[in-house]
């Protein structure tokens, strides 16, 4: 008799375990991301960045990777793995960047790369989020007395090849009936050297990179950045198509940085706000209310860790492009309520 009871109890245990597992499995299966699984298992995020571009991604004086793009890598690692330092940075040239992402060697590409129509549709990639709004800008020697791009007829401009810039210049020239000669370099080092030597009258790239290039010239004061911006260059993060949950994590990690700035939550006041705040917006953001982290397949402390490790978007921008760094006015990268384009979808 006792044997029957034992069997019955045993069956119950097994059944409840199975039911428990099934329940667990259902909760997990709502978020099924191969990339997220791989990152967690590896304990490391593989992040594709620029090989060395001041402002975006560069190795600082102590040999650590630093920059606006690097900050997004660190933020994602903090959100997913709990540690912003668990990132392996892969420095990529513009030629190989997409192939390396497609082949799965990196989990995300954030390499001052322009988000375009063809890249979205033809390369099998998802343009997760825009972290920097800019446009093609020109820098010329002051002694040429040029004030506008339209006056550059006949001038020679140094460009880095493998970018969207060559075509933008040609399109601009055609539309405005000026002929701007381009000199296409494979790497920034030789392009800077040629510009320094006077081989070209100017240098062009997106706004942030031009500011960086100017800081790298022998005599930065000899160069002036022209006011016109001749193209749209929304720079941002790419991930592989077919892994939407991972794409969402990258997207909302950037949004978390912007939301933090909008809520006036910074690295310094973060802990205090978490302890004292009664505002529903801030409580939702910090995971004190709602289950936003879990909806991404993470835990509810994810956004706290992001701000803790890299700060909010404004802090990150100031660190690399602010007056003490490259000195690029925030312009389009201001928050939407300050006249810029950095805007967050509703945190609901």
């Amino acid at each position, binding site marked *: 008799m006792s044997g029957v009871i034992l069997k019955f109890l045993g069956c119950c245990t097994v059944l409840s375990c199975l039911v428990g597992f099934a329940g667990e499995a259902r909760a997990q299966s709502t978020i099924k991301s191969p990339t997220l699984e791989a990152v967690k298992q590896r304990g490391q995020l593989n992040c594709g960045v620029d090989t060395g571009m001041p402002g975006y991604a560069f190795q600082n004086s102590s040999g650590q990777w630093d920059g606006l793009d690097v900050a997004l890598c660190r933020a994602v690692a903090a959100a997913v793995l709990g540690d912003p330092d668990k990132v392996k940075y892969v420095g990529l040239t*513009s*030629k190989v960047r*997409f*192939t390396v992402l*497609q082949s799965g060697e990196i989990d995300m590409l954030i390499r001052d790369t322009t988000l375009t129509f*063809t*890249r979205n549709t*033809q*390369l*099998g990639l998802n343009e997760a989020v825009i972290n920097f709004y800019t446009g093609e800008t020109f820098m010329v020697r002051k002694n*040429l007395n040029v004030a506008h791009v339209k006056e*550059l*007829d*006949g*001038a*020679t401009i*140094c460009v880095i*090849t*493998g*970018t*969207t810039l*060559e*075509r933008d*210049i*040609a*399109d601009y*020239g*055609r539309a405005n009936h000026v002929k*701007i*000669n*381009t*000199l*296409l*370099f*494979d*790497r920034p080092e*030789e*392009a800077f*050297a*040629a510009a320094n*030597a*006077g*081989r070209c*009258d100017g240098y062009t790239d997106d706004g942030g990179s031009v500011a960086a290039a100017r800081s790298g010239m022998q005599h930065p004061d000899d160069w002036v950045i022209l006011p016109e911006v001749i193209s749209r260059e929304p720079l941002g993060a790419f991930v*592989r*198509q077919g892994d939407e949950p991972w794409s969402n994590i990258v997207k909302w990690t950037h949004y978390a940085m912007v939301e933090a700035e909008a809520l006036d939550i910074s690295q310094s006041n973060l802990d205090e706000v978490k302890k004292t705040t009664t505002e529903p917006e801030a409580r939702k953001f910090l995971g004190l209310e709602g289950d936003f982290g879990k909806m991404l397949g993470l835990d509810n402390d994810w956004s706290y860790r992001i701000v803790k490790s890299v700060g909010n978007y404004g802090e990150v921008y100031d660190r690399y492009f602010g007056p003490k760094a490259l000195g690029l006015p925030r312009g389009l990268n201001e928050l939407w309520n300050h006249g810029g384009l950095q805007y967050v979808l509703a945190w609901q």
Partner: protein
Amino acid sequence: MTRRPSRRATAGQWLLLLAVVAVVWALLRSAGHNLAQRNMSLGFGFLGDQAGFDIPFHLVSWTTFDTYGRALLVCSLNALLVSVMGVVASTALGLLIGVMRLSANWLVRNTAVAFIELIRNTPQLVQIVFWYAAVLQALPSARQSLAVPGGILLNIRGLYLPRMITGPDGSFLPWLAMLVLAGTPFAWRLRIRDARIGVKALLLPLLAAALFLADVDRIEWPALKGFNVAGGIGLPPELVALWAGLSIYSAAFIAEIVRSSIQAVPRGQQEAALSLGLKPRQRLLLIVLPQALRLMVPPLTSQYLNLIKNSSLGAAIAYPEIFEIFAGTVLNQSGREIETIIIVMAIFLVINLLTSALMNWYNRRVALVGR
């Protein structure tokens, strides 16, 4: 006569070939499958798309309205130009250094040794960038151009030569001039009443030049206009730097080939020439070099092939060759990585196989005929 291979050996070779074909096919299929999974496809239709970017130096006409296919032609010609210039210059320089290396004069010999060791043991890319920096530092800015006699301008933007503008299209004079020029070697061998025409045939190229000049309508002189020199033919400093980098690097290797080939000519030949009373220069030019030449040709071929392949390093210094334009800008704009890389490899393969075939043909002509 060679022995015919056994039937089993023949079957084995066919099987191996089949296996190779099967592996290649499987690779292509899996690449195609993987691309299809990412909603991408393989195809060469993009060559007909409009390029929309500028190529700063071109031998044939180029506008931003031209296609990617035309861009491929333009940059291939640029690569061929610097390769041909490099082959000629490296051969001449290599020959000179190689002969200097064997000189009895201590200073001359050791100058050659120092040159060879310095050049051979530093990376090619570093040298090209070095020459580029050197060229750029040495030249004056566009507004302070050096005026070379003959209407030639030299500045940091390049070397500008006057251009001769020929008469209206359809004029037959340039064609006639070319025909006359092509006929010169035949006229040289022609015999009239058992007497060769010989040197008198050199009048023909003069006639060709006269015909060509007669067709010139006006001369376009380079002149400073705005930021740059306008008019004339401009040779960019990138071409000069790449040319110098490629030629000097290859010359160091060619010099060693020349030295070893000269030393491989049996000493008896030198002694025989000496006993005939030939002067040193005659010994070198008439006895030693002709015999060394046929030993040089096969290793020279590899050096030429290397030089052609290394022309792709021009991408580092903004020389618009295949690797920079096609595997750079076109690859990036079209997003067709696999296709563009296949095309670039195929072009280098074709150029190098043709060079190799030409050199082999020449080798057969100069090789000792075994009797």
